[in-house]
């Protein structure tokens, strides 16, 4: 399985990558994008199985990225990993086509449980 991690913060991309390694999820590879435009290019060229995206990014917010993906007819599995933990955020994410929202700070257990449910 190929996962695309989208976050403008390299530090946060590192944390997501490291936390994924701490889970029991095996047989996956990660690729990274530092912004929405880069993510759209990689989704087209690399065809990831899952996108893990931040919400709050410059130029193109995560929710705009998701809107563009769905508008193009791409149904790639998509989840947010974000500090934006309001109900409004969750409702907007779900109604736009996200499968899950994980709130920062998060643990390997939270990430593993969420991904296992998604991949089951």
């Amino acid at each position, binding site marked *: 399985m190929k996962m695309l991690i989208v976050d*403008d*913060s390299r*530090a*946060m991309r*590192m944390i997501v990558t490291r936390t994924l390694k701490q889970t029991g999820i095996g047989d996956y590879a990660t690729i990274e994008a530092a912004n929405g435009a880069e993510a759209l290019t990689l989704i087209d060229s690399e065809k990831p199985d899952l996108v893990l995206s931040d919400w709050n990014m410059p130029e193109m917010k995560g929710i705009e990225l998701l809107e563009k993906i769905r508008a193009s007819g791409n149904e790639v599995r998509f989840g947010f990993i974000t500090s*934006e*933990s*309001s109900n*409004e955020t969750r409702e907007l994410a779900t109604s736009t086509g996200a499968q899950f929202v994980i*709130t920062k700070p998060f643990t390997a257990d939270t990430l593993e449980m969420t991904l296992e449910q998604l991949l089951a």
Partner: protein
Amino acid sequence: MAQLATDQPTSEKMKITADQVTQMTNDLFDSMLGMHISGGDVSEAAPPQDWIQSKVQIQGAWNGELRVVASGELSAAIARAMFGSEAENLVEQEILDALGEVANVIGGNVKGHVDQDCDLTLPEIGEPEQVSGNSLCQQFTCAESLLYVVLVQ
């Protein structure tokens, strides 16, 4: 610096407590960074001016600002915790990025507690700002250094 809206009647504005900020800060350092942090007492002392501040603003139906102030040494320690195995030879931008994420996560959690129609700004890095009367300034200890978390609300 952007002015915070002052037209919200105090009695109707939801207040975030020091205990809530302490919990959010502890959760971040313990669960995501693997760093021990203690304290959280409300501080009368202002953060040193030569330290580094990262801040995010919450703007909309509820207005506020979350600042994190740390020494250069602690900022580097936080960055090492975030970058893990790739922590050697971190450049200044990566250290500032890491401190910005601390403000982003705690500020995002504040926004979640408020749960009103608001936007969270991207982290800004700069010099520590003055702590005014409507600020909640808390002092923590992490990696043998002080860390200040200031919530303006």
